[in-house]
């Protein structure tokens, strides 16, 4: 896909996120919308996988460490052919494979069970160590973390281990949207100087605009070329990206839109705030 095609895909995925969350009546809005460009890049450009054979033994691994953002993963997986988009409407409902937080054993294509924060990098480290023992080179492990998640000590335990063993097939990406449930990250528990923190733990750091798909793809390409250490991409994103009344507002961290808000959000997304025409408006 070309970058403009990926941008349109991201826009479709955002609309599905809004529909899913409205239908579910609970869940997180800001994070999934902010992460959509990253997930679109991962599933439609960066990662090596087979949606018809999710357990293919040469696939790359994607670990969503901040499980509460799973609506963006479900929506992107549906677009990537793992399951029918109709199933997205079952999010958070009884009997659904799309649990409120991701459960590996419920849905083929998920690589971990998460929700409680701070565990993704540790699991990635275990996987990378196993791959090294088995001499499975050329498999990448992509980990998505949130910035609020970095409050967890477990993250830094893993950061030390991955650095110690030079686990260079781990590429983390932090959704640096500066919000968490109780407010801005820098007032809840300051994270800056975030780049210096990761560098001092022995990681190569790349900082990008995480809502620019081309920048995301370039950063992953760069990360794969760094061989001497694990890489952390700090992706600056706009929480609630694409929907004016959600952008930058921490209140939308853990809240879904109601029906009226969803209609408004979908209209904005269809037109990219008036910038483009989508099929629905033609």
């Amino acid at each position, binding site marked *: 896909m070309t970058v403009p095609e990926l941008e349109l895909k991201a826009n479709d995925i955002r609309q599905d996120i809004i529909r899913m969350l409205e239908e579910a009546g609970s869940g997180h809005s800001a994070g999934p919308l902010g992460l959509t460009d990253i997930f679109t890049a991962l599933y439609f450009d960066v990662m090596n996988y087979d949606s018809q054979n999710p357990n293919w033994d040469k696939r790359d691994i994607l670990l969503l460490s901040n499980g509460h953002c799973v609506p963006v993963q479900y929506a992107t997986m549906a677009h990537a052919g793992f399951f029918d988009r109709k199933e997205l409407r079952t999010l958070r409902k009884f009997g659904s494979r799309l649990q409120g937080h991701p*459960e*590996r*054993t419920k849905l083929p294509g998920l*690589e*971990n*069970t*998460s*929700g*409680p924060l*701070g*565990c993704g990098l*540790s*699991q*990635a*480290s*275990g*996987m*990378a*160590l*196993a*791959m090294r*023992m*088995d001499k499975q080179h050329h498999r990448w492990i992509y980990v998505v973390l949130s910035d609020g998640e970095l409050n967890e*000590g*477990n993250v830094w*335990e*893993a950061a*030390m*281990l991955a650095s110690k*063993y030079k686990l260079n097939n781990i590429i983390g990406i932090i959704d640096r949207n500066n919000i968490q449930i109780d407010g801005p990250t820098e007032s809840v528990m300051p994270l800056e100087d975030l780049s210096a923190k990761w560098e001092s733990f022995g990681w190569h750091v790349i900082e990008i605009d995480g809502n620019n798909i081309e920048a995301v793809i370039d950063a992953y390409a760069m990360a794969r070329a760094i061989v001497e250490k694990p890489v952390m991409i700090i992706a600056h994103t706009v929480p609630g990206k694409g929907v004016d009344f959600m952008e930058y507002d921490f209140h939308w961290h853990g809240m879904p839109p109601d029906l009226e808000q969803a209609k408004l959000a979908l209209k904005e997304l269809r037109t990219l705030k008036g910038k483009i025409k989508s099929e629905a408006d033609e």
Partner: protein
Amino acid sequence: MTAMHLVDLNSELKTEPIRKGFGRGLKKAGELDINVVAACADLTDSTQMSLFKEAFPDRFIEIGVAEQNLVTVGSGLAAMGKIPFVSSYAAFSPGRNWEQIRTTICLNNRPVKIIGSHAGISVGPDGATHQMLEDLAIMRSLPNMVVLAPGDSVEAEKMTLAMAKDKQPNYMRLAREATPVFTTADTPFEIGKAYMLREGHDLTIIATGTMTYQALAAAEKLIKDGIVAEVIHVPTIKPLDKEVILKSIRKTRAVVTAEEAQIIGGLGGAISELLGEVHPTIIHRVGIKDRFGESGTPQELLEHFGLTAKHIAMAAHAVISKRV
């Protein structure tokens, strides 16, 4: 009754820390299966992982003092088809990292083998912080988790080999001090089975871990009082072998449980739950009674907290007197 091939209890018994059996078993498991790997949180010698580390340095991971990372790295190793044994002191793992075990191992259903060494009051002089007494309770409450406590070092070795073949998450508790070796290479062991070590008719003593030997010694003492006790060893606390236990209790109608752990939620808790629902029976639980430990020699502490053969025998008299 299955032949148990125990050591003659009236002979001079060899003593050895249970954790030594784990160390030998892990090395053997590593020889049998290349996928067996090990990780430790800065306690490689004390948890006896050093034998494995020396034999298979490329399959050993030093995690450092980071128990949350220890078990989550284990989850990642298992995701790639490895059979990871992860060890620390029980007070730290599963003491500190219960949520990671719950989410990334049990709910995620990855067959990580968690080894909690230095469990129980007999840890001794290190004191209450290091005497893990709640591990059986917190591990038993987790769906998918198998909970194990070997009775001696010989059984620990067999248990470790069985764990390497088991497809579920496992927790095994180990003890620090040397304790009597009463089983032999021929004594049977399977995960999920309880074993009748001694037949009787006056009461059933059900014990696990280091307390099984004490239960056998108590049964010997009780003979002198004219009481013939049945002794059941429960190396698998979860899933519980209900059949063997209920068969005995239907006969004796009086039960004493014995464990070096809190009676809340441990073996005594498990047996009480079973009996309360299926066959209400008078029960006395020998174990730690909702308190923390303290510093002292192992023997002083076992005596002070009521965890010796003598205390089991006293409990036996008490249940028999209350039997309806």
